[in-house]
C-alpha cells in the first residue's frame, strides 16, 4: 500500500522539490529557466525518439499478410485457369456434339440426335433462354449491427445476412411455382447441384457465391409470380424483408438466359438395365431408332424429357454444353471415360 500511496499522491519526482530547496538555500531563484541548452537538447532528443518509435512500431505488412496476399493471387489465378478450362470444355463439348450428330447421321440414326438434345435439356447441360423471373437477394444494408434480436431458422450468424437456407427455400418455391430452369449468379442448378454453406459463404454446386444473389428462373413470368408470392417461399421472403431488412427484388423479363451446367457428370450412377452406351456413335450397328427412347422411358426419364421438349423450353443447342458426357441419364460417357 505504501507503494501505491506514494505513486498516487506524489507522482512528481521529489528531485524537483529538493533541487529548488537547495537553490533557494543558496540564494538563487527557485526555478531555472526552461531555455537552457540541456533542456532544448533533451527536447529535440525526445521528439526524435517519438518520431522514430512511431515509425518503427507502426504495424507493417507482416509475413502472414504477404502469405495471404500470395494465396489470394494464387486463388485468383487458379479461378481464372478454371474458367478458361470450363470454356474449353464447352468448346470441346460442342465439337463432340457436332461429331456425334455427324456420326449419327452417317450411321442412319438421325432421330437419336433429337433424343439426345431433349435429354440434354432435361439434364441441364445446355444453356436455355426464354421468359422468366429475376429475383435478386442481398444482405441487409447494416449487416454488422443488431447482434441478437431473435432467432431465425438455419442461422447462427448475423441477422441481416442471406443464408443458404433462405436460398434453398426461395429456390424450392420457384421450382414449385413452375420454374423450368434456375441459375444462381450464373451457376445452373442441375439435378445434382446443392446449395450449402461453408462458414459464412454460400456454396452452390461447390462454388462459393458472393452477394448479391441473382436467381434467374425461366418460366411464365406472370404465372410464376402469381404462384410464388402467396406461397410459403414468397411469404418467407417478405418476412425476411420485413424483419431482417434483407433486400429482394423480383422482376419479370421476356428474355433471360441460364447457362448450362458444365460440371454435370455422373461418376458412379449407372442406368438400370443393359447400358444404353451400346448405342454410342460409331461403335455398333445402329439399333432401331426407337429402342433408346423406349428404354429410357422405362427408366422414367423420357416422359419428362418429351414434355419439356414439347413445352417448348427453347434450347440453345449450339453453345455451351459438354456434349455426350454431361450426365444425361442415358449418357454412356461415365463408362467410356473413367476420368
Amino acid at each position, binding site marked *: 500500500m505504501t507503494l501505491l500511496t506514494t505513486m498516487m499522491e506524489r507522482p512528481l519526482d521529489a528531485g524537483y522539490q529538493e533541487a529548488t530547496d537547495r537553490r533557494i538555500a543558496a540564494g538563487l531563484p527557485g526555478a531555472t529557466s526552461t531555455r537552457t541548452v540541456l*533542456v532544448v537538447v533533451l527536447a529535440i532528443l525526445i521528439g526524435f*525518439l517519438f518520431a522514430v518509435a512511431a515509425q518503427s512500431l507502426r504495424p507493417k505488412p507482416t509475413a502472414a499478410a504477404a502469405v495471404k496476399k500470395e494465396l489470394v493471387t494464387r486463388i485468383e489465378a487458379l479461378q481464372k485457369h478454371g474458367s478458361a478450362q470450363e470454356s474449353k470444355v464447352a468448346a470441346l463439348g460442342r465439337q463432340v456434339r457436332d461429331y456425334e450428330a455427324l456420326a449419327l447421321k452417317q450411321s442412319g440414326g438421325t432421330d437419336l440426335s433429337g433424343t439426345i438434345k431433349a435429354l440434354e435439356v432435361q439434364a441441364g447441360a445446355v444453356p436455355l433462354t426464354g421468359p422468366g423471373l429475376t429475383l435478386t437477394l442481398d444482405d441487409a444494408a447494416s449487416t454488422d449491427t443488431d447482434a441478437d434480436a431473435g432467432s431465425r431458422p438455419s442461422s447462427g450468424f448475423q441477422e441481416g445476412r442471406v443464408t443458404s437456407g433462405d436460398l434453398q427455400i426461395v429456390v424450392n418455391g420457384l421450382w414449385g411455382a413452375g420454374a423450368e430452369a434456375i441459375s444462381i449468379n450464373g451457376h445452373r442448378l442441375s439435378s445434382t447441384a446443392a446449395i450449402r454453406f461453408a462458414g459464412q459463404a454460400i456454396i452452390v454446386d461447390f462454388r462459393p457465391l458472393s452477394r448479391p444473389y441473382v436467381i434467374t428462373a425461366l418460366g411464365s413470368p406472370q404465372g410464376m409470380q402469381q404462384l410464388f408470392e402467396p406461397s410459403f417461399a414468397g411469404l418467407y421472403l417478405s418476412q425476411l424483408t420485413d424483419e431482417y431488412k434483407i433486400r429482394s427484388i423480383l422482376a419479370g423479363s421476356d428474355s433471360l438466359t441460364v447457362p448450362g451446367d458444365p460440371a454435370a457428370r455422373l461418376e458412379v450412377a449407372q442406368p438400370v438395365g443393359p447400358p444404353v452406351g451400346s448405342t454410342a456413335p460409331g461403335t455398333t450397328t445402329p439399333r432401331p431408332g426407337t429402342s433408346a427412347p423406349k428404354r429410357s422411358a422405362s427408366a422414367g426419364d423420357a416422359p419428362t424429357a418429351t414434355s419439356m421438349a414439347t413445352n417448348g423450353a427453347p434450347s440453345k443447342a449450339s453453345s455451351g454444353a459438354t456434349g455426350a458426357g454431361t450426365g444425361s441419364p442415358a449418357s454412356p460417357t461415365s463408362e467410356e471415360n473413367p476420368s
Partner: protein
Amino acid sequence: MIPVLGLMAGLAVGLFLDPSVPVWLQPYLPIAVIAALDAVFGAIRAILDGIFNDKVFVVSFLSNVVVAAFIVFLGDQLGVGSQLSTGVVVVLGVRIFSNVASIRRHLFKA
C-alpha cells in the same frame, strides 16, 4: 516555447530521416516512449509549480529510460518480458495521469 520548438524539430528530423531501428532495440522503444512522456509531463508540472530544474529534468528522463529498459531487459532474460513491461507501463502510466491531472488543475483551476 523554445523546448516545444525543439520537440517539433526532433519530430521533424525523426520523420524525415526515418532511421531503421535495429531489431534488438525494438522491444525497448515503447517503454522509452512512455518513460519520455512521464519525464515531459513531470517537467511541465514542475514548470507550472515553479520548481523546474533543468538538471533534474535531464536526469529524471535518462534514469527513467535506463531503468525501464533495464527492467524490460531483465524480464526478457528471465522469460517474463511482457509481464515486466506491463508493470513498467502501469507505473509510468499512473504517474503520467497524476501529472496531467495536476497540470489540468494549474491551467483550468478545476
